[in-house]
């Protein structure tokens, strides 16, 4: 247990407001991310003990990871220019991500990240 702490971080991710349709119609996901990830947010190469530059896993990496590994269709409905598309609100532990550093927020074990598509119907 103790040795795993440093190498990975497990978080809960939720989708709401219709975004769940893009993710296997499943609202709640549990994900384990590497604690250190490439600074270019590449999600396909395994992070090895090479000399590549790394950073702690942050929300920007999470967005890339979700796009590359969990998204089933139509990436443009979720991601745009390396962040979420306009109209999506990101919450970190029930707080607007803008109060937490947006994409630069480093995810911690047990964090809950929610992606909400704003609704317009009435």
């Amino acid at each position, binding site marked *: 247990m103790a040795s795993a702490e440093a190498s990975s971080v497990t978080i809960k991710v939720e989708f709401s407001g*219709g975004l769940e349709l893009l993710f296997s119609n499943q*609202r709640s996901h549990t994900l384990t991310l590497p604690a250190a990830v490439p600074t270019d947010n590449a999600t396909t190469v395994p992070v090895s003990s090479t000399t590549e530059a790394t950073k702690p896993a942050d929300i920007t990496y999470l967005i890339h990871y979700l796009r590359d590994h969990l998204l089933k269709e139509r990436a443009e409905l979720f991601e745009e220019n390396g962040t979420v598309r306009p*109209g999506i609100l990101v919450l970190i532990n*029930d707080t*607007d991500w803008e109060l937490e550093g947006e994409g630069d927020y480093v995810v911690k074990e047990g964090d809950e990240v929610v992606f*909400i598509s704003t*609704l317009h*119907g*009435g």
Partner: protein
Amino acid sequence: MDSVIGGPEYPLPLEDYKRYGRQMILDGFGLQGQVNLSRASVAVVGAGGLGCPALQYLGAAGVGRIGIFDHDRVEISNLQRQILHNEETVGIVNSRLVIDAVTSAISASNALTLLAGYDLILDCTDNVPTRYLLSDTAVALKTPLVSGAAQKFDGQLCVYHYGENGPCYRCIFPVPPKPSNVGSCEELGILGAVTGIIGNMQALEAIKILTGLHDGKPVMHIYNALSTPPFRTIKLRSKREGCPACGTGALEKALVRDTDYVQFCGGLRPDWEHTGL
């Protein structure tokens, strides 16, 4: 207007003490809360699934004047009659309630005029351009905006431009979504009871604001009828310094007048059914 209203000795007609007694005895509500409601005016924009329950409960609570705005539903004059006579369903409505039913389409050129004079605006509409227009108008007119939205099993509720440094709609969503990423209730579906719950909560937020019971903290309530727990309350950012609507040096009324909201939101929405989602 009843001459008794506002008289210093009898701030409310005597029958109102009986009619509204069950809410007037609530802590923090009291006679002053009822007087505030009787003197308040609320604009409800959109008289569909959100607007109708909101109207009913605002009327039943004793709000003095309600504006109903809906150009798609010319039958809102029936609705007006219905609310005034809807005694069994939502309690006895005050016969002094003034209802303005407006069937002109709200646009950048008339919003400031049509919505001037209301203490509060409820956004019960169903499209993106009108949501930006109402937010900018609420900021320019210095009124809070109680915004509700619903789709499928989901609902969202937020009070914008209220309290110390409360954000406006543009602070939270500076860039509108592409029209192709937006669906309507007709296309995506909606459960009527979801709009009922959100519309009702809009009325309640309005009543809290008008009676001084709202804590003014910027939050959004999100709802999904099938989730456990169904509600989640999100802490929102403060207003953005650089917001073109409410930030430092914002254009205020000129912003409303000079914006083509349909264009700003990416033009007319494509026909959803033909684009394949």
